[in-house]
């Protein structure tokens, strides 16, 4: 017994101490619940994992979701229903000539981690590095005719362009390429941000943890120079699947998520408790692309036959649940360059497809389509498979995970890009047509231009349109470019889709007009 007494883990614990200890433990365990209950934590779903913290590697909206929280720009998009921008780091910014923009930064805007004040040198470093060939910036096209930033003072500078660049206010400055990073911190890190946690941030939040494939954990940035963020902690949680994201929302694991088109009608019929669904016209463009350089499709009649055998309304019904409308091109309604109608109507014409194949001397055509492993595109591919069979076309579907899929058309990732046949893709978009056509110029073959579409007139128009300041003339140019794409037989435009968001009533989300979240502006309701 004596031995037992001396080795007890509670050698002299009285009943009163036990009660006190239990009470303290209970209070401690209740703390996280209290923190959650007062709304100081926000969980936002990310449908893919952003690449990293370096804008050189950015490829689309997912990076913007993260960068918007941790970095700043000269100007930012205004949340709401209309596309507009507002000052962010800039105190003043104005177009001083067709090829120059002068800016002055606000005083006392600070970097985190002791890296001092944000200066014009940081702006110059951040934008100029995209133009350095060796840096292989994936978003260099966003900057158009930008050449360099001239520093004129500690907080002032001039942005120079080779020629006028209309989208500088809608794409270059308020989106990915306009992200300002800390020159001193990045140079100390070897010129590129490759660390698990970014060395310096300036936005309302800072990264405290990145659980690969799972989430980014952000917390309020104490060095942020603007109005303090409303949430103490923000988790950007990677949930690839729309159904899983919706279940996560219902379980309370995420506060804000986009949802699949298949859920819209059901949620309209049975609105969820304590949550709101919103619908926004999206700017994305989904399309079926065909590699026009593939010898199998050398004869344009074969390419046209394939395009005529794709029934877009059936795809809208099956894969987009009739929530989205067929598109006429890559530029959404409301933007300069939108075409009221395409050259080929959305409805399939199987007789015409068969006729074209007969003219090309083909009895039965077997082709392959590569799609991303998501329910919308695999469903669309299955509908195509069933419909194309009516025209004598056998379609084999190859499904890929994200990493594998997005390397298919990239020349630096092997030779598969040469043998590509059909693909279904969706690109994100900004409110300027330049951003849509930039990926289909000849220079983009082997990178984003998987159709390997190369047309001199298209390239010329793209180049001229970015400097064109007359909206009507610009509109014509972009319409013509989409005509050229369609005439090549390499493109069957599907839809711009819709963005359906589902969020808890305890938060007041902020989104762009196309429904994409601007998490840095989220507030508690």
């Amino acid at each position, binding site marked *: 017994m004596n031995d037992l007494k001396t080795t007890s883990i509670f050698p002299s614990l009285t009943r009163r101490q036990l009660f006190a200890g239990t009470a303290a433990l209970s209070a401690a365990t209740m703390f996280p619940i209290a923190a959650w209950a007062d709304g100081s934590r926000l969980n936002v779903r990310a449908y893919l994992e952003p690449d990293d913290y370096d804008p050189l590697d950015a490829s689309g909206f997912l990076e913007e979701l993260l960068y918007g929280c941790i970095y700043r720009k000269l100007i930012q998009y205004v949340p709401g229903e209309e596309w507009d921008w507002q000052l962010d780091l800039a105190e003043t910014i104005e177009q001083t000539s067709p090829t120059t923009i002068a800016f002055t930064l606000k005083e006392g805007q600070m970097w985190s981690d002791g890296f001092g004040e944000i200066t014009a040198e940081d702006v110059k470093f951040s934008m100029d590095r995209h133009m350095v060939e060796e840096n292989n910036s994936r978003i260099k096209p966003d900057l158009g005719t930008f050449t360099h930033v001239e520093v004129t003072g500690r907080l002032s500078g001039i942005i120079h362009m080779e020629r006028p660049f209309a989208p500088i206010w809608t794409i270059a400055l308020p989106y990915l390429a306009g992200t300002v990073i800390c020159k001193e911190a990045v140079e100390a890190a070897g010129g590129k941000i490759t660390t698990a946690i970014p060395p310096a941030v300036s936005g309302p939040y800072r990264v405290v943890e990145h659980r690969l494939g799972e989430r980014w954990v952000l917390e309020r940035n104490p060095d942020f120079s603007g109005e303090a963020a409303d949430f103490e902690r923000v988790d950007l949680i990677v949930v690839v*699947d729309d*159904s899983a994201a919706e279940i996560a929302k219902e379980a309370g694991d995420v506060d804000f998520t986009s949802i699949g088109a298949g859920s819209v009608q059901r949620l309209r019929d049975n609105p969820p408790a304590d949550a709101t669904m919103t619908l926004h016209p999206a700017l994305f463009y989904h399309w079926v692309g065909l590699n026009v350089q593939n010898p199998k499709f050398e004869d344009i009649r074969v390419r046209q036959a394939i395009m005529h055998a794709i029934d877009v309304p059936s795809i809208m019904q*099956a894969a987009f649940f009739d929530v989205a409308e067929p598109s006429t091109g890559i530029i959404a309604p409301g933007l300069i360059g939108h075409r009221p109608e395409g050259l080929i109507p959305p409805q399939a014409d199987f007789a015409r497809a068969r006729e074209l194949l007969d003219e090309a001397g083909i009895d039965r055509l077997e082709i392959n389509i590569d*799609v991303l492993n998501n329910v919308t595109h*695999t469903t669309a591919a299955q509908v195509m498979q*069933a419909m194309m069979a009516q025209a004598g076309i056998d379609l084999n579907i190859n*499904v890929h995970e994200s990493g594998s899929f997005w390397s298919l058309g990239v020349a630096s990732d092997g030779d598969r890009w040469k043998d590509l046949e059909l693909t279904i893709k969706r690109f994100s978009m900004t409110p300027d047509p330049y951003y849509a056509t930039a990926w289909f110029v000849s220079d983009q073959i082997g990178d984003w231009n998987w159709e390997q579409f190369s047309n001199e007139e298209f390239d010329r128009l793209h180049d001229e349109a970015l400097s064109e300041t007359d909206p009507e003339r610009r509109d014509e140019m972009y319409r013509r470019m989409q005509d050229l794409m369609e005439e090549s037989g390499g493109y069957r435009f599907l839809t711009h889709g819709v963005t359906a968001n589902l969020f808890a009533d305890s938060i007041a989300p902020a989104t762009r007009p196309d429904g994409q979240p601007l998490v840095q502006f989220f507030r508690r309701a």
Partner: protein
Amino acid sequence: MMDRLKHSLIGRLLADPMAVFAMAIIVGLVIVAVFADVISPHDHTAMNLADRFAPPSSTYWLGTDNLGRDTFSRLAQGSRIALYVALVAVSISGLIGLTLGMIAGFGPRWLDNVLLFVFDTLRAYPTIILALALAALLPRGLSTVIIVVVITSFSEYGRVVRTQTLSLKNAEFILAERAMGASAARIVFHHVLPNVLGPFFILAAMNLPVVITIEAGMSFLGIGVPPGTPSWGATLKDGFDYIRNTPWIIIAGGLPLILVTLGFTFLGEALRDQLDPKLRKSR
């Protein structure tokens, strides 16, 4: 005659209610697979978007999926895929495992060590990771599923057969055969092989549902059969994607997997009970 049947393996299995239940399921599966075209009330590929997500009815016995395809007809066709993958993959991996296991057990020590190293290495590799890696390299389809199953499972057969062979290698009747000048081939094929077949078949029966669930799992993850193929896993995937719209697809897709797993597992256990002398004595 009746007495002989009663004491034969089949007779003993027929006397075991669990085995009878298992065989009924398996025979049912085989019948559905063979006569899938006859018993399917609809074309399993025919889309009817107006009827999508229909609940079970006299027209659609197990309802319809997101493209309005008849779920029962797709499951009936899916039984062919399940059986095909299971039989081919288990046969190939079993044959490889049987051969290598006997070589390891009866061959020289160094060869045993090499093969044991191969078996252990492959067994240590997670099936799903290997499946993901191979799916990225090979074209999608049943052949890729079969390759994944063979690579991940032949070592299991090899291990079991090797152990059995080692225990037989120094048995008195084998030593007597050797003393009488019997060749290695005669010893292996006439004495070792018949004695390792019992455990081998038990393992094969137990592995059949595992293979079926691997195929279903790969198709569920989108790395198995191409979309549109009526695999049970693909049906489960459709059911999961649209579980908020209708629960019927995932319920219907899960049922055959549960039944087949039960059937083959019970059969394997019944076989083990009958073929293992120790278990038979204890009954």
